[in-house]
């Protein structure tokens, strides 16, 4: 894995033009995430319908290209999924970033998995792993509403 692969077109594209970078109207769940090490901040807004399906998801924040791209790709992929499906995707992604070679979930299409696999480049840069996982941890927090603010420094990643 080299630099070019880490900063592939997909990441640069999402990093420079993040999707869903806005605030959802009438959101019913939200959470903030913060990585004090690099100052990355993210605020995730989630609107679940009565069937616990993601009707809309968006984020606000600032950060490096990797953290912005990660939040952008994540929000694009989980829209329309049910809450427990979202959790499965999150877990699959976090396990892939941590140790697994590939994504196992059947909930994503191959082209969607390719987008996520672009982020696996951070494995070679341990200091950057937190950049890629901040928004994902924050989404878990929004769903569970266990903590108001995720501080990624106190997380495993």
């Amino acid at each position, binding site marked *: 894995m080299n630099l070019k692969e880490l900063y592939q077109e997909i990441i640069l594209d999402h990093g420079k033009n993040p999707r869903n970078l806005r605030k959802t109207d009438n959101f019913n769940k939200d959470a903030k995430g913060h990585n004090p*090490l*690099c100052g990355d901040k993210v605020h995730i807004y989630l609107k679940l319908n009565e069937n616990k399906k993601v009707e809309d998801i968006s984020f606000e924040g600032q950060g490096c290209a990797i953290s912005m791209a990660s939040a952008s790709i994540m929000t694009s992929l989980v829209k329309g999924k049910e809450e427990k499906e979202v959790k499965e995707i999150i877990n699959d992604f976090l396990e892939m970033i941590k140790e697994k070679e590939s994504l196992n979930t059947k909930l994503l299409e191959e082209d969607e998995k390719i987008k996520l696999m672009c982020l696996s480049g951070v494995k070679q840069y341990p*200091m950057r792993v937190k950049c890629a996982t901040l928004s994902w941890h924050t989404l878990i927090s929004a769903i569970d509403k266990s903590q108001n603010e995720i501080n990624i420094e106190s997380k495993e990643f």
Partner: protein
Amino acid sequence: MKIEDIKKEFPIFNNKVHNNDLVYLDSANSSQKPLVVIDRIYDFYTKEFSNVGRSVHYLAVAATNLYENTRTSVQKYINAKDKNEIVFTKGATEAINLVASTFGQKYLKEGDEVLLTELEHHSNYVPWHYLRKSKGIKIKFAEVNEDGEVTLESIKKKITDKTKIIAITHLSNVTGAILPVKEIVELAHSKNIPVLIDGCQSAPHLKLDMQELDCDFYAISCHKMYGPTGLGILYAKKKWLEELPPYQGGGGMIGEVKKEGITYGDLPNKFEAGTMATAQVIAFNESIKFLNKIGIDNIVKHENELINYGQELLRKNNSVKLIGNPKNRGAVLSFTIDGIHPHDIATILDEDGVAIRAGHHCCQILHEKLDLVATARASLGVYNTKEDLDQLNSSINKCKKIFE
């Protein structure tokens, strides 16, 4: 020793990084080590190792002498009055913690004020914060100006009759500002306030003279001075070391130990509890010799040339913004690039073998003040050259291209 040849003394530069020559611009974080220092650690462990200050056998006596030789070298290097004013610690962080803890314990009470600056590294804030929690002291911050400096005036403004100690950096690890420490010490002493100086960034780059500076405490990080990790130095005036209570208890720091009571050892043993970083102390003597061989005046001249060259280069580079514009700048160039996060800059520069640091550099208070989440920082050492700065500049241009 010719300053142009110094890179050759550092074996790390024989290695390639991502198939490129290493351009090491992270010396404010930690400096590389010359071969003489590395060899000294190897030789000590292979031929001379023993613990110091205890046994009377041949190796123990020889090791003790070597250990104390470094103390004398440090004393001379910083022109301290007495060799027993030099205390070895595990780092500059421990040196500051030692002072905050023991000074706080003996002299500070609720409502007393400790004066810091907005430039301080976390290691010169957090130890004082503990006293805020445990004793209810107040912490004040002298303000940084728009050039990234802390002036004598801004210190003066924050001194009150409750100020019990002033703890300030000598050279900011973010803005590069060199503080007017001598004038600050004079001002503080005129009000009977002792001064601690965090000398982490200044000690490798500036001429040090403790007797002339007249500060009460001065903390030094040896791994930033071309020495081993795990070692720092606290310089403290003898009267303070005599008056302050011990910091840690253990072997080596005691006088007499009885069930009903304990007396403490003479200086500086009172503050060196347990087995110290013996090999590192002994190897650090080689760092001092290395610095002396080049000569501090030559180091200052060389690094000033580089700083001026680097400042000009980055100022000319559109969209690069230098952080701080101090009249008196040390070997630090922090910068941002419009639209590119510092961590992305650092990762992309790394691909060219250019090692810089990105983040808040353990100075969150300052970054909040400057309204920046993070900065990129190129910092210099004695081995750097103008070519290194040229490479930095061209790698920055490559980075800009990727993000165009």
